[in-house]
């Protein structure tokens, strides 16, 4: 993954609340088997409306997106993060994010910045004319008008983003600890190994609660 230290440039002043992942990328775009090309389907329903921010040439290719409360709610589809990444978005600023979305965004090198609503309101104004800078080093969002909003970022995520680390590789390095845990449960909870992993079909299997008519 590419390291991210700062994200600087124009920002889409989107601002909508409760933007679910169906809005970010509708279900009919999910039938891919790769991660690329989803930017084309991003915000399809929003872009169907005349005068929307995403088709405004002023913001074309903006690396920042400003949104309202509860951004990325709904389905866990990572396609939402891939679609934003494919659009060129590297940071989303909102008062809150759904847990799953912010995890997915992080794994694709997109910074999710939580700021209070009054800061969002101010940034929405600035975004209409000027650039915005998200700096992971100082954990601030700044504008050329001396605005300076501090934000919090999980230290681990911040490190990973700034160094461009691959999470799977990091965890694979913990193989000894994982193997130790596995031999522990093999002793304490041996029933956790599934019965014959899907083989041995029992034709009489019930599909309801036992003891009911």
């Amino acid at each position, binding site marked *: 993954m590419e390291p991210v230290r700062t994200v600087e440039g124009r920002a889409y002043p989107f601002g909508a609340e409760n933007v679910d992942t169906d809005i970010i990328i509708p279900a009919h775009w999910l039938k891919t*088997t790769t991660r690329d090309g989803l930017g084309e389907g991003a915000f399809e329903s929003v872009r169907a409306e005349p005068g929307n921010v995403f088709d405004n040439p002023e913001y074309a290719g903006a690396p920042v997106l400003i949104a309202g409360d509860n951004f990325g709610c709904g389905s866990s589809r990572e396609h939402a993060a891939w679609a934003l990444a494919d659009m060129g978005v590297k940071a989303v600023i909102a008062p809150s994010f759904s847990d799953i979305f912010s995890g997915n965004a992080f794994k694709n090198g997109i910074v999710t910045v939580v700021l209070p609503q009054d800061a969002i309101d101010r940034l929405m104004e600035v975004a209409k004319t000027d650039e915005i800078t998200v700096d992971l080093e100082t954990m601030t969002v700044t504008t050329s008008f001396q605005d300076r909003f501090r934000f919090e970022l999980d230290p681990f995520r911040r490190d990973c983003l700034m160094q461009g680390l691959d999470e799977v590789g990091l965890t694979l390095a913990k193989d000894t600890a994982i193997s130790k845990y596995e031999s522990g449960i093999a002793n304490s909870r041996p029933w956790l190994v599934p019965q014959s992993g899907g083989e041995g079909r029992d034709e009489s299997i019930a599909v309801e609660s036992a003891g009911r008519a």
Partner: protein
Amino acid sequence: MASKPLTLYEKIWADHVVERRDDGTCLIYIDRHLVHEVTSPQAFEGLRANGRKVRRPDLTLAVPDHNLPTTARVDARGARLPIADPASAGQLAALERNTADFGIAYFDAVAPEQGIVHVVGPEQGFTLPGTTLVCGDSHTSAHGALGALAFGIGTSEVEHVLATQTLLLKQSKTMEVRVEGALGFGVSAKDVILAIIGRIGAGGGTGHVIEYTGDVIRSLSLEGRLTVSNMSIEGGARAGLIAPDETTFAYLKGRPMAPKGEAWDWAVDYWRRLPSDPGAEYDRTVTLDATDIAPSLTWGTSPEDVVPITGVVPDPDSFDDPAKRAAARKSLDYMGLTPGTRMQDIALEHVFIGSCTNSRIEDLRAAAAVVKGRKVADRMKQALVVPGSGLVKRQAEGEGLDRIFIEAGFEWREPGCSMCLAMNPDKVPAGERCASTSNRNFVGRQGPGARTHLVSPAMAAAAAVTGRLTDVRDLLGDGTV
């Protein structure tokens, strides 16, 4: 010294920590991983690109569900029919290749066990109390009904679990949702969870793991509990737990992948120690009185837009919050509704009985009880029943439920997600209205421009036979019960 009383969530968490980092992030072991065709291709692609293997194929189970057509899958001679949509066919082919290459158990599109991943897991006994279970799908919360810590993950996490059988997580806050009292006549588990989401809001559980408690939850069947936990994510909570009890054990005993013999006894012994200790503290508690819950449904485009069927379309101006007012106006515009209209006066063209929320045998029975001896209303364009799995379908056919539906004018389909998310050919056309037993009424969810009202199976059946949103109690009251 007595140890601190723990919640069910805290107990499961503690038993799955592989490693704890200074900042509180934990490497959590994953006991069960369900895989389907839509959110896994890129994960397997990632493994291949890095020359990695699946750490525990034996803890992984795959089944296609999201974009399989629900029409016949084999021809008269038993040969498999091709899938018309090339993109869907491509995802299915990728899943078949990936499960074969990586040695993962797989129920293919024509296996009798095939079905919606969240119906199949519990039904096979793959889902067990006290386990951690994940799937690249947000309604994985459903499995919490068996007392499993179950939640949806994204594709990068799918790859992480495939490669390492672990996830990096931070402990969530806990929220108790207590439902006391008793359910009224004609009120189902679906009405309970709609009422809960109406109360806490679509973001109410964000950052929390819910535990559902109280008499009403205890009295629900396992199927009803699955309906409740399923929609935890619609209240913003990634997971929604229900403590395992005798209902859970009776449901699991004898299922193909559940422990057998001596292992079963050890398991039950462990499961009995899981329920939250007396005096355990939650970060938040919300209490509902079930006597206040009527058959319910949604009027807008968020699952929190809930009203009782006896209610009216709300006036956007009645909301205090300006953002809510604007959202309600937009919703009503999309839904084609006028404030003050009685919900029962709203006519519709489609009914969908299915999805991982309400496609189990009990759901089909509840719907069939309403449909029996009646006909789908003339104005209806489509009334679909899509069983949650091949096993549910076969059982329903054994009970003659398929005849009841077909004779009334419903279509009886093959198992899959179907009209829940319109990834396969089952869609609601733009501007048309559907009473749906699924879990999401988002804009475009059932097809571009589709208008969705979330309801229980009995309420969906009632709407199908009258052609409008209907209080099912009126139909049940005329001699059927």
